[in-house]
């Protein structure tokens, strides 16, 4: 068997948080003095340090040419893992072996200097990304052509439009030809076209046999591009194996992973997605009603209400349901436990996974108890079509279908082509 492109053994990364960081000398001196006084006072003097393990004992290996997905919630350690693999930060424990040049699409545009011309920046950026000068010179024309900035190549990039800037930056990164490519879609700039370009570059790279690590919140993209996945949860490697199983585990976890905290006045004790018959369901077809059934405990505050925010899996808010704002609705003003069912008419959502963030609110003072990532469901839009419309995946055309109606046509009187009155 071929030796792995990346092998990671008992990798851990610890960050020190909170009170131990002293950015100014004064803080540090004060801290030291306090420690000294404590020690003199005989109270042990152990200084409060808060550790945070971004990664804990992670083991995996990646075969050459493999496309590996990395999934997990925000803060699960995905970015830390990538930073360690690209050697920006060092691990606290563990060993990593990497065969081949690593480059990552999160470095796009790193080191671009606004005062320098496009030409200068190509060389500078190339050198920063680790390309030898000869290689940059050889690829120079291809990079300029790819970025479509031939006319402006001797103009300082501060005069570029943001589109040109991104194109040029991306062109340099795309011509890196590393053996190992890291694609972090989570951190990539929100521009959809740009993300699409990243994905395009990625499948091209995978066809030419490169090893790829793909980090994304876009479950569909992970499903279609990777065969094996790492699922990280709070710094631990929860699962490593076939993509389908990893995604299944991940979405199931998202669903059950309730925030344990409570609100000051009204707390969501339980919540579930149900169909019209009151049965729990993981899918809502587009255009139908979605029902969110929740158990809410209130202290009787007359301003308390509930809200639901429709989100995609990266956490981007797509829509708001707020009976408090829209209709002046409130929870009962008598303390107690209530079952509240929200009936939300769904748009024809683009096929994919979505979620509801729920919260109780006090009118005029914002959320009281917030539940994020709690409820995940799949949706499909089949407007007059036997198969679901792959609006987002195939056409990159947004989150939902606008209207199923057909245009109306009225003839304009007069001879055809003659518009004079």
């Amino acid at each position, binding site marked *: 068997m071929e030796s792995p492109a990346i092998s990671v053994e008992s990798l*851990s990364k610890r*960050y020190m948080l909170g009170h131990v*960081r*002293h*950015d*100014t*000398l*004064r803080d*540090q001196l004060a801290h030291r003095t306090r420690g000294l006084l404590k020690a003199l006072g005989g109270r042990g003097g152990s200084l409060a340090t808060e550790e945070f393990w971004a990664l804990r004992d992670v083991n995996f290996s990646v075969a050459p040419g493999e496309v590996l997905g990395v999934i997990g919630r925000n803060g699960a350690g995905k970015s830390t893992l990538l*930073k*360690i693999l*690209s*050697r*920006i*930060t*060092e*691990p*606290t*424990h*563990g*060993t*990593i*072996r*990497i*065969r*081949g*040049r690593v480059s990552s699409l*999160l*470095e796009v545009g*790193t*080191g671009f*200097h606004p*005062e*320098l011309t496009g030409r*200068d920046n190509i*060389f*500078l950026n190339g*050198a*920063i*990304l*680790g390309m*030898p*000068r000869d290689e940059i010179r050889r690829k120079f024309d291809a990079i300029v052509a790819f970025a479509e900035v031939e006319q402006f190549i001797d103009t300082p990039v501060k005069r570029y439009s943001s589109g040109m800037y991104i194109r040029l930056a991306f062109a340099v990164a795309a011509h890196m*030809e*590393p*053996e*190992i490519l890291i694609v972090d879609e989570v951190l990539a700039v929100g521009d959809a076209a740009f993300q699409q370009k990243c994905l395009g570059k990625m499948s091209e790279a995978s066809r030419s046999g490169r090893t790829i690590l793909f980090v994304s919140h876009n479950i569909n993209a992970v499903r279609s591009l990777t065969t094996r996945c790492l699922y990280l949860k709070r710094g631990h490697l929860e699962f490593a194996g076939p993509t389908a199983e990893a995604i299944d585990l991940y979405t199931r976890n998202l669903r059950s992973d309730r925030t344990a905290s409570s609100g000051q006045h009204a707390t969501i004790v339980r919540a579930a997605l149900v169909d019209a018959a009151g049965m729990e369901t993981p899918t809502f077809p587009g255009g139908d009603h979605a029902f969110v059934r929740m158990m809410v405990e209130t202290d009787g505050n007359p301003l308390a209400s509930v809200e639901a925010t429709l989100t995609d899996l990266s956490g981007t808010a797509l829509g708001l349901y707020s009976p408090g704002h829209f209709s002046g609705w409130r929870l009962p003003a008598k303390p107690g436990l209530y079952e509240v069912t929200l009936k939300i008419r769904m748009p024809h959502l683009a096929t994919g996974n979505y979620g509801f963030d729920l919260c109780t609110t006090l009118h005029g003072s914002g959320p009281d108890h917030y539940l994020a990532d709690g409820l995940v469901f799949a949706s499909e839009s089949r407007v007059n079509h036997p198969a679901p419309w792959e609006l987002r995946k195939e056409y990159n055309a947004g989150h939902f279908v606008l209207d199923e109606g057909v245009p109306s046509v009225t003839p304009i009187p007069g001879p055809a082509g003659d518009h004079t009155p």
Partner: protein
Amino acid sequence: MNEGPEITIVAGRSEAHYWRDLWRYRELLGFLAWRDVKVRYKQAVLGAGWAVIQPLVQTMLLTFVFGKLAKMPNGTIPYPLLVLAGLLPWQLFASAFSGAGGSLVSNSNLISKVYFPRLIVPLSSLAVAVVDMMIPLALTLPFAAVYGVFPTWRLLVLPVFILGALVIAFGAGLWITALTVQYRDFRFIAPFILQIGIFITPVGFRTDNLPRWQTILSLNPLTGMIQGFRWCILGGGMELSEQSLLMSCGAGLLLVITGLWYFRGTERRFADII
């Protein structure tokens, strides 16, 4: 395409690659230096003009204060020339020191996004200091000729002293830049050091006529370098003090060695705290 290198990352043990990597990234060193120089002269409207105006004004001021008001002895050398030849290494030091000192923070976008040996950043910032010095240096020679002082073979030794001043500035800069990442206070401390430095360094006066103070002044590592510059540029009438030279070399080496030690010790955490 050639087979990529195999890299092993072991917690707490990056030493092995470091110096090899530094060599491998030498092109980046060149590019960063080139960028700094290019950007510096692009942004300023007067461009290279500043490199001329600044030492001229300083020369006039220091000549007035030390030569006219304090009436410091100048030997056989015209006072403005004495000051100008002292200002060259001082400016070289000041610009290299503040450049290296601020280099990590001003390149933080690179440090938090890509890997390369971080030592490249302060190293590349030295280039600007050298380029900055070339212009006033080129002006000094005709200026000296006006006063009847002509270059001798000694001018050929000047690069040694340029290197010496750079080494001292680099060592001190390493300390400051690594400390600045951790404690932002040092951003204010570096200019403070320079403000004081110009007075406790023999920039506006010469030391060989002050036997009482010579020992104390030679504790300053820059004293030897400034004497060296004057010895090279001003020809006869200047003596080199072995004591100052030895002090300069010793202090310079000590600064660089301890600076490297501290920089390397904190380097692995730069990306986490910058």
